[in-house]
């Protein structure tokens, strides 16, 4: 009854899309207005933390190699860390704004893990292409939350992070278990799925 990997990617894409929309709206209105209702202040950090927690069963049930397992484990940890740090800041348990560095850390660790654990070239299959594209997007996208730590009121840096998450969602929705990319599919990638 386990879903094939592509369905799991689509479920996480849905989470990232919602996360991106929330952060985009937050960038539009500013932190003060966004945090006016307690449930809303907790919404996106809770979602991020929950996605980190849900990454653990993905690691356990869906990985078929050590490097794959380590990559999923690192995503789980950094998503939980970034979500928990933001929850702590919202709740008032944490005070230093430097806890927000956990977000660029999460993106850079995730991007690096994506790039390291993909052993095939860009055009091997669609999933390989997406691993490379997602990895570089996360690595470059880490600039936005990093800059937002030092310029927290800048809508450019805040909305940049939100758009990075929307792009991540689009790429995860594009994933298929075995599918060609721009007409290329390595003969050793396996039989194409629908």
């Amino acid at each position, binding site marked *: 009854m386990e879903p094939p990997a592509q*369905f799991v990617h689509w479920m996480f894409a849905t989470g990232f899309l*919602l996360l991106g929309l929330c952060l985009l*709206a937050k960038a539009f209105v500013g932190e003060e207005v966004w945090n006016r209702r307690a449930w*809303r202040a907790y919404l996106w950090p809770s979602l991020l933390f929950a996605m980190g927690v849900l990454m653990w069963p993905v690691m356990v049930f869906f990985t078929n190699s050590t490097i794959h397992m380590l990559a999923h484990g690192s995503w789980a940890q950094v998503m939980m860390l970034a979500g928990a740090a933001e929850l702590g800041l919202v709740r008032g348990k944490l005070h230093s704004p430097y806890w927000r560095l956990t977000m660029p850390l999460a993106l850079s660790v995730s991007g690096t893990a994506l790039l390291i654990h993909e052993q095939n070239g860009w055009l091997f299959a669609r999933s390989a292409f997406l691993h490379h594209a997602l990895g570089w997007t996360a690595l470059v996208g880490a600039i936005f939350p990093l800059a937002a730590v030092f310029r927290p009121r800048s809508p450019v840096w805040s909305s940049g992070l939100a758009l990075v998450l929307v792009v991540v969602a689009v790429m995860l929705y594009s994933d298929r278990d075995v599918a060609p990319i721009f007409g290329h599919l390595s003969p050793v990638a396996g039989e194409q799925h629908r």
Partner: protein
Amino acid sequence: MSTQLVTERAALRRSVRTLAISALGPLTMAGGVAWAFLQPYRITLLHPHGQGFWWLVIEPPLLVVLVGVGFALLVAPGLIADVEEAER
């Protein structure tokens, strides 16, 4: 005169922000609907016979529409009210 200008600019900024927030949900829904038209075979509810459980439950274009609906109904109205109240 300058007070009037400031008031008008604040009203314009408020209307742009509320418009942007109220557009996020519908734009997301429109993206999901457009995807469904581009790849109708992804909507397995249209041809459910012989589909497996996961193919019927997880249909990406519908998930995108669902996120848009959820945002438009649950997040946007309260946020718009708070923006208007904050700038009043």
